[in-house]
């Protein structure tokens, strides 16, 4: 069993998918010789050739638009968007074409496209390099949206996303790429892609997170434990569809919930999750579901990003407010 980073897990997962299915292609800016600016596609062009690992002209709409045509021809394109903030030039192709062609054709045409997006902040970058665009995609029927939070999930989830016959927006917490390592046991059976997971059990409050915030959530739960508060942490993993049965079960047990994400709170995933929890667990709730997230300002200059991003203290503050409600 090897210890791998998230970057390596994703790289190995894409490689596996390409080995298993000659129809899998990788497309994007600088994904070839350079292996992507984060090296997620490192070595793939060398081994699979320029026709399967395609450096594209600098045009995101072009990447997604040509991916649609390749998908219609039977290919399974895995498109890399270099940074979250650069997905917007491709937004039209994603929401009006990729998301709708299966529906438009009454199921005759499938769109097995994966859009890989390194997302979130905390890497000291300039503007447009730290966005969290997930809510906009989750609001779009026809797309599926997932976010991985650790190396092992990265390895399995990217393979499952590529195998999925629907378009998947695949969010990768970029600041975790080269951070923590984890043991990968390839002999285990991975959890299905569109499911959430309880990553820490607890009884006082349910803390929900995904992507980069899972680590923060775990640290918060640990810190709270030292104060005698027992927090259950759930990694949502799938944002569309949501898998909330485990969440409802948890909230019925704890009576309280906090949702955390880096995205702006206003109209963020937390709004949907909170609404559904409230609808499903109204009589179990002892306090309103609280949300912690990025403020409703554009992402700030990097010297203050750590203050802007929800951190352990802000999560704990919400936890305390919920418990004290």
């Amino acid at each position, binding site marked *: 069993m090897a210890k791998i980073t998230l970057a390596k897990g994703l790289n190995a997962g894409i490689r596996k998918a390409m080995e298993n299915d000659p129809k899998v*292609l990788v497309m994007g800016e600088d994904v070839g010789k350079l292996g992507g600016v984060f090296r997620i596609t490192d070595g793939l062009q060398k081994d699979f050739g320029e*026709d399967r690992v395609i450096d*594209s*002209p600098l*045009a995101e*709409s*072009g990447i*997604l*638009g*040509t*991916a*649609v*045509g*390749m*998908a*219609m*021809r*039977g*290919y399974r394109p895995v498109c890399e968007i270099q940074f979250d903030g650069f997905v917007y*030039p491709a937004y*039209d*192709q994603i929401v*009006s*074409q990729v998301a709708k*062609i*299966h*529906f*438009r*054709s*009454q*199921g*005759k*045409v*499938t769109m*097995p496209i994966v859009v890989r997006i390194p997302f979130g902040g905390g890497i000291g970058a300039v503007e447009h390099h730290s966005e969290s665009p997930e809510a906009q995609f989750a609001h779009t*029927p*026809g797309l*599926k949206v997932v976010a991985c939070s650790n190396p092992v999930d990265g390895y399995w989830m990217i393979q499952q996303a590529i195998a*999925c*016959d*629907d378009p998947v927006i695949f969010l990768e917490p970029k600041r975790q790429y080269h951070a923590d390592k984890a043991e990968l046991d390839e002999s285990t059976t991975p959890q299905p892609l*569109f499911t959430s997971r309880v990553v820490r059990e607890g009884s006082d409050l349910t803390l929900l997170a995904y992507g980069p915030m899972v680590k923060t959530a775990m640290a918060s739960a640990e810190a709270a434990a030292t104060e005698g508060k027992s927090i259950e942490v759930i990694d949502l993993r799938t944002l569309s*569809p*949501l*898998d909330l049965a485990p969440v409802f079960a948890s909230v019925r047990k704890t009576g309280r919930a906090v949702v955390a994400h880096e995205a702006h709170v206003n109209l963020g995933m937390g709004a949907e999750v909170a609404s559904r929890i409230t609808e499903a667990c109204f009589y179990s709730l002892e306090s309103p579901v609280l949300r912690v997230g990025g403020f409703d300002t554009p992402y700030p200059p990097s010297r203050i990003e750590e203050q802007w991003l929800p951190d352990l203290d802000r999560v704990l503050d919400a936890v305390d407010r919920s418990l004290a409600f």
Partner: protein
Amino acid sequence: MSEQSNFGPDLGEVFGPNHADGGPELVQLLTPEGERVEHPEFSFDLGDEAIKGFYRDMVLTRRIDTEATALQRHGELGIWAQLLGQEAAQIGSGRALRTQDFVFPTYREHGVAWCRDIDPLRLLGLFRGVDQGGWDPDDGNFGLYTIVIGAQTLHATGYAMGLQRDGVVGTGDQDRDAAVVAYFGDGASSQGDVNEAFIFAASYNAPVVFFCQNNQWAISEPIERQTRIPLYQRALGFGFPGVRVDGNDVLATYAVSQAALQRAREGQGPTLVEAYTYRMGAHTTTDDPTRYRLSEDLETWKLKDPIQRVKAYLTRNGLVDQAFFDEIETEAERLGEHLREGCRALPEPRVLDIFDYVYAEDTPELAEQKAGFAAYLDSFETTGAH
């Protein structure tokens, strides 16, 4: 205040006061009077039987269009995008296709659909509002109508890149080598997507023909708003050939399309074909062109009618007799009937079905939403609630 802009070139000057002739660059093989002419680069290499077939195609295509327009007037369609005047551009290019070629249409390619053996009834579904494209793109290699202007040109380029990867380009096997055609309009040429499609196609030398029907109008905006030089020259900026063909001349359109497709199939890359034509009808049945264009223009273009010139050629040269026309007329009548009856009989969509079309792999979430809605609908039947 004046209605004329103070800036910019006088666009009339750029194109000349009446540019209905398409200029000297125009490839023409059959004049509006029905006379065949030679062109140094392009020639029509099929016989008169083919021309008769084109004539039939164009007449029947026009019948589809007029029937659909009438159906809209009778409230059977919500809207209809007319092709009146563009029959030659569509039949000429559509008949140049081989079975293995693939087409990405806009919302107006009823004539190309005809060439791909799509039952015209299927075209009506979108405009009647019973579906959003009622055929399988893999039957007839004809993609679904695309409404977001220009989006399909990138799909076409990607599909062409797929053909390259499938090894069906430039093998020399005529039954195997394939190409893609992306149809789009003059207005569409301004969209980023179309220009990106040019860039990708050039970069990868993809086997795609960009077939622009320059019908002079994008709803109310004249071609001069989109470009100040002849549109076919756009290709020069991207490093592949562009050619302007008389889009009302079915022979020339066929010849030029055939050459462009052949280049693509042989692995020589993309071509831009500008079919110079005119939108004789309204943009759609909800449009009112009298608000923005002069009726004289329309009169000028009527003299260039794509069907009349073939008819003139056929009769003048004694290639057909009255029976030929009668037969086509009978066929057109049958087609009209087929459309009128078929349209009303098109199955209504069922609202519960649509939940099944969202994803290839169902989600429990949507299944639940569907079940909830089904129960809600049931409640009316059982209780007549509310």
